[in-house]
């Protein structure tokens, strides 16, 4: 078993792992009570905890969006505080586009739980419509890995439509990441594959459960990634998406 990276204590990455662990447990266990602020513990009042909220983006809301738990008002306020404390950068076009897609997913997830987040201070502007995703599978996988928090049922319809028919390319990316032992990337691509499998040719829901590789890949990731809460979070989200 490989443990390629362990976060240093008292860093944003540590806070991110703490929160990701709580999120994945909440996704696996329906009856577990869950609150974002409570899960962050001592991190919740510091900038490290708020930064962790920004790192996980819309995934912070998955226990509410995917399980039907009501979003506590204090957690909605905490997300807004995090967005304001860590506004989106606007200097580099590539980074702005990445943040724009992630923040659009956050606004969509907030809307799904009854919170109007549009216009919140600190959010990145919506990304401009592009001319299409990368044609080759390697570039496509590299593009989608950091966008995994946008892979949820309320993902941008245009993006999902562009992904239609790219299942084999996503699967190639998943296999490559597994072979490289890049577990986080593999888990994120598995999540996109689940989402792609739930869309028909015209973006309509279908009953496809993904390629035959998907289920054993998720089990593989759960075992090998048991020491990385971020991997477990991606797998937990993928499983929740499959169950929908």
């Amino acid at each position, binding site marked *: 078993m490989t443990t390629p*990276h362990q976060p240093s204590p008292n860093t944003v990455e540590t806070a991110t792992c703490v929160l990701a662990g709580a999120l994945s447990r909440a996704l696996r266990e329906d009856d577990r009570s869950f609150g974002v602020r409570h899960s962050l513990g001592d991190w919740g009042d510091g900038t*490290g905890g708020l*930064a962790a909220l920004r790192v996980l983006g819309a995934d912070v809301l998955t226990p509410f969006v995917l399980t039907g738990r009501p979003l506590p008002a204090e957690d909605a306020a905490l997300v807004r505080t995090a967005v304001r404390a860590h506004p989106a950068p606007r200097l580099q076009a590539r*980074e702005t586009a990445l*943040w724009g897609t992630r923040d659009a997913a956050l606004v969509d997830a907030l809307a799904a739980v009854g919170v109007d987040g549009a216009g919140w201070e600190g959010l990145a502007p919506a990304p401009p419509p592009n001319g299409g995703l990368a044609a080759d599978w390697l570039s496509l996988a590299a593009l989608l890995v950091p966008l995994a928090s946008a892979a949820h049922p309320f993902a941008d319809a245009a993006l999902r439509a562009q992904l239609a028919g790219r299942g084999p390319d996503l699967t190639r990316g998943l296999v490559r990441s597994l072979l*490289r*032992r890049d577990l986080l990337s593999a888990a994120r691509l598995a999540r996109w594959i689940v989402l792609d499998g739930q869309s028909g040719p015209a973006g309509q829901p279908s009953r496809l459960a993904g390629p035959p590789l998907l289920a054993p890949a998720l089990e593989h990731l759960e075992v*090998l990634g048991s020491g990385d809460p971020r991997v477990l979070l991606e797998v937990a989200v993928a499983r929740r998406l499959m169950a929908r």
Partner: protein
Amino acid sequence: MSVENSTEMRALIAAGETSTSFGPGSVRGAGVLLLLAILSANPRRNEPIEDAFEGSVQNLTCAAAF
């Protein structure tokens, strides 16, 4: 907001695929491959290499794969 937190947060958000591979072709896997090459140079007659040395080669291969 500290600069360190902001920088680390932006790096975590922008992080894509890891630049380090731990796969069979990586430096980490090179030791196992070297051992396999050494062992495969002296298989017993009429014995599949996977079964040589009481299955140790097969065990090593499985260990490398998983």
